[in-house]
């Protein structure tokens, strides 16, 4: 029972980061946009909740207000950032998003009356979230809902156009699709969901500090998405799970055997091995293998037909 409580917290963490990683996958995997600043949306959500709960009352109405504010701000910011894809290509866009996220980091650092700088502050959450089991379930349901929504979204006609943009932007345009609008839509949906993940994150910690705006957070999303397999959504979930659990097990091992004291080395090796053995991420590679064997079966039967 106790053991499962601890696991429960770990899973809660997985669910939250799975949402965050899925929001990133929408950009990276489906629209082909690389952002190094995804943490800015995460951070906006995390701080919005923290500040509301701290400055006002830790009640549900204020929480909902914080959610609304998060949606508003992340939508506006991601709209502007999405517009910039018009001007900036690949690395240049990625670095600009990094700059923006860093400016949010500086803002959080400097606006100390509200944020307490990088020390951060703790706050109370509404009754609803206090029980860890309840919160675990809320996160689980949120993740499933986000997955279903995004799954529907990416398989919709609109989603197909996003993939077309990823493949060949200019051609998509000449087919009569207004590329920038699609990019903005993807950017906004992704930004808002990342903000939502940020909300859950800071509720789970009941604490927020400037770390939510750092490059590390963006890298987490990036790694989880890539490890799982870009453009698969489910990969983001698996990636989140894999990273959190590998982390958990390796730190546990560190206590068991001195070899693992520098467990971060093994963590790094996992990344390297994933690329070597799962070049398209776990889900991507497995799907690939499946597709190949399916093709082989088809080919065989065709050969038999031809022979017969």
């Amino acid at each position, binding site marked *: 029972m106790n053991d499962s409580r601890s696991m429960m917290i770990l899973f809660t963490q997985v669910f939250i980061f799975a949402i965050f990683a899925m929001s990133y996958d929408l950009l990276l995997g489906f629209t082909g946009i690389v952002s190094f600043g995804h943490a800015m949306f995460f951070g906006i959500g995390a701080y919005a909740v923290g500040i509301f709960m701290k400055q006002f009352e830790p009640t549900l109405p204020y929480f909902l207000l914080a959610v609304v504010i998060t949606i508003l701000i992340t939508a506006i910011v991601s709209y502007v950032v999405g517009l910039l894809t018009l*001007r900036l290509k690949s690395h240049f866009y990625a670095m*600009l998003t990094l700059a923006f996220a860093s*400016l949010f980091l500086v803002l959080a650092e400097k606006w100390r009356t509200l944020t307490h700088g990088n020390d951060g502050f703790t706050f109370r959450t509404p009754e609803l979230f206090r029980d860890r089991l309840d919160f675990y379930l809320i996160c689980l349901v949120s993740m499933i809902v986000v997955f279903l929504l995004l799954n529907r979204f990416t398989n919709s006609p609109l989603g197909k156009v996003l993939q077309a943009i990823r493949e060949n932007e200019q051609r998509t345009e000449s087919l009569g699709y207004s590329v920038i609008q699609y990019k903005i839509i993807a950017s906004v949906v992704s930004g808002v969901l990342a903000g939502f993940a940020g909300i859950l994150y800071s509720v789970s910690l009941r604490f927020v500090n400037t770390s939510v705006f750092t490059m590390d957070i963006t890298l987490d999303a990036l790694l989880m998405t890539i490890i799982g397999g870009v453009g698969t959504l489910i990969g983001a979930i698996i990636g989140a799970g894999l990273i959190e659990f590998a982390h958990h097990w390796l730190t546990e091992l560190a206590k068991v055997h001195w070899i693992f004291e520098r467990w971060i080395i093994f*963590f*790094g*090796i996992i990344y*390297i091995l994933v690329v070597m053995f799962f070049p398209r991420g776990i889900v991507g590679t497995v799907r690939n293998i499946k597709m190949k064997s399916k093709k082989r079966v088809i080919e065989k039967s065709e050969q038999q037909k031809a022979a017969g």
Partner: protein
Amino acid sequence: MDVFFNLTLNGLATGMLIFLLAAGLTLIFGLMDVLNFAHGGLFAWGAYSGTWLYATTGSFIIGILGAVVTGLILGLITERVIIKPVYGNHVQQILITLGLMLVLSELLKVVWGPNQLSATAPDFLKGSFELGGIIIIKYRLFIIAVGFLVFVTVQYVLKNTKIGLVVRAGVMNKEMVQALGINIKKVFMLVFMVGSGMAALGGVLLGPYSGVIHAEMGMEFAILAFIVVVIGGMGSFPGSILAAILVGLSGSFMAYYVPDLALAANMLLMAVVLIFRPQGLFGWKG
């Protein structure tokens, strides 16, 4: 006026130092288009191995050469094992080089322990002198000189050989370059090694600048190097040196005149440059 000169000189020196840190990345990221997140690990290894060699042998030159050799060797291994399978695939590059970064910086701690180490300049480069109100730090003059030397050398090599062209062509169309009779794998390997060696050189020269080296320095300065390469315009050495000097000067002047924004200096500079020149300062159009 003295203040102005001091700020300019120090900003310039810092810019040159940043250029030295970014020069290797200009090759690896800018020219070869490899998103090498482990580049910072190479700085740190250069810094540690060089500082350690200097401390044990007492020769600054051996320290520097040792660092460069370390960089070359690490570059060779990295290229063969880590980078070769993932050329042209940014997504895989991010993951695998981040993994390598973790390994490299943790291994540092295994070898040299988790504590920061102090790094000093040799006596003849220590200290500073005053020239009519302007304080001139010897080591900074040295850095400016080395930076300039590296720039001129690399620029000369790129201008007078096909190597830069071949690398750029290889990134655009690897098959075609090979069909023209060029062993692009070997070229990439050599360029990657040189880039890594230059990273290590930047790392070892950084040590005495701030007086300490630590395992986490890698990531910190790698981001700075990425900024420089991007705002300079991918793969352009003149762009990189200009961008680096801009970063140095803006840091120096902002810290003096608008200290409230100093924290955001680099990022603001990058945002402004990219918004007005989306391809970087010396980037090709299109």
